[in-house]
């Protein structure tokens, strides 16, 4: 299958973006350079094209009850115009996807899902619709999205709107905001560990937002940022990536994301029984952070050993651009996850010493 182009494809090419096929989409892995873009987001601001992300609307009088059944987090305390992070699980506790839920009102929610999982998620949602009185609509192709992230994100975006952006609190949204003459939905959310906004507009109009933000942001050091630094930024901020820290095989509890799985939620939800049992019986493996003490960079899939015994594998690893350390996440035997424990990471068939550290790498 040929990869698809987002509405911003031509802009990426014009900016010299190095285009790759990611999850079926042609997207820039970098423009000027991964590290420069990473640093721009940490110190000033960066803008990402995230139009590949999927958007699925759930509407109807049972929307709340349906989502409580479908998702692991508890939406009962969510107010209108609030956003929540959650998992959608299989009955065995494995993860269908991780996603954001935007609550417009009791009968209208927008789910923002991973690009690679759109079709799978949509089918899963339809298959589990049961008798709930709802309409599920995949509106991914109608919506374009950009993420403006970094300490200067608010200042830059504020130049393009009369709406007071400081009134949007973390994990809240505002609909019908005029940005550079375009009708947008804005949320104070992101995937970088920095302050910032995600801006949604129709796929025809997102290009205007992109161009205007680049134009006004330039003097404040805003750079277009590619997928390369999107991954290093989210990794440093301990945010999971589907297929790595959580997956079909790795439950949110094993990933260390129990906060987003409300086992005490009143309503039943798909996976509740299996996850409750897993928690009660005790985990056998768990995600841990580690730092390489010897020389070498850990990479996804590298095996972890304690002595002669294989205890797990690396889910994500990098030379962290912010911390300048070789660090990673690993899914390992729960008995080996104690802070300070020394393990070996197999780098090109050679054991390299590493020690377990907190996976909250970035301390703010």
């Amino acid at each position, binding site marked *: 299958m040929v990869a698809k182009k987002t509405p911003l494809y031509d802009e990426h090419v014009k900016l010299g973006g190095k285009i790759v096929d990611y999850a079926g989409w042609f997207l820039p*892995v*970098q423009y000027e*350079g*991964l*590290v420069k873009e*990473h640093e721009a987001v940490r110190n000033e601001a960066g803008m990402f094209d995230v139009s590949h992300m999927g958007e699925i609307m759930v509407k109807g009088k049972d929307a709340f009850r349906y989502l409580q059944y479908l998702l692991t987090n508890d939406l009962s305390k969510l107010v209108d115009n609030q956003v929540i992070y959650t998992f959608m699980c299989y009955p065995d506790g494995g993860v269908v996807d991780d996603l954001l839920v935007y609550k417009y009102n009791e009968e209208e929610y927008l789910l923002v899902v991973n690009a690679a999982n759109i079709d799978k998620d949509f089918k899963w949602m339809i298959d589990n619709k049961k008798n709930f009185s709802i309409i599920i609509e995949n509106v991914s192709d109608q919506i374009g999205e950009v993420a403006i992230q970094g300490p200067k994100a608010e200042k830059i975006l504020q130049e393009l709107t009369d709406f007071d952006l400081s009134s949007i609190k973390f994990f809240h949204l505002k609909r019908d905001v005029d940005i550079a003459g375009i009708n947008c939905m804005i949320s104070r959310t992101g995937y970088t560990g920095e302050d910032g906004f995600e801006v949604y507009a129709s796929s025809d109009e997102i290009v205007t937002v992109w161009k205007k933000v680049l134009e006004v942001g330039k003097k404040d050091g805003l750079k277009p940022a590619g997928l*390369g630094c999107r991954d*290093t930024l989210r990794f440093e901020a301990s945010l999971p990536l589907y297929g790595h820290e959580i997956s079909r095989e790795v439950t949110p509890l094993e990933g260390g994301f129990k906060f987003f799985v409300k086992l005490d939620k009143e309503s039943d939800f798909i996976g509740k029984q299996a996850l409750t049992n897993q928690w009660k019986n005790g985990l056998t493996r768990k995600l841990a952070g580690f730092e390489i003490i010897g*020389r*070498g*960079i850990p*990479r996804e899939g590298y095996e972890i050993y304690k002595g002669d015994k294989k205890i797990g594998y690396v889910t994500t690893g*990098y*030379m962290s*651009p912010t911390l300048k350390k*070789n660090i990673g996440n690993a899914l390992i035997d729960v008995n080996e996850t104690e802070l300070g424990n020394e393990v070996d990471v197999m780098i*090109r068939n050679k054991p390299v010493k590493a020690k377990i550290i907190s996976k909250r790498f970035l301390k703010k």
Partner: protein
Amino acid sequence: MKVAKDLYYTNDHEWLKVDGDEAYIGLSDFAQDSLGDIVYVELPEVDDEFDKDDAFSAVESVKAASDVFMPVDGKITEINEDLLDSPELLNEDSYENWIIKIEISDKSQLDDLMSSDEYEKFLDEEV
């Protein structure tokens, strides 16, 4: 992309510069540019022996690790230790900053490599 003259090149974008019975080996400008910001270089040890096409080093950017392969059979006589502390030298000038020096085991293997002109054409066609 810069292609330095009077060197031998491989399909994997290594270069080789003959120096008597020995040769310097490094990465082409195209290779360093494709990798992006290089943050780590793993080097072999002096006296290690490798066959043609064996991976003798790994060069890593933030994004990924790439093996570097032997253009011909040979024994390591020198390694460029500057790269251990300053891997970015490869981004700055990948022809000036060689990775290893070897003793060539079989000079006839040089015939299988590309000339600078051939490599330039290869880049045009392949990339």
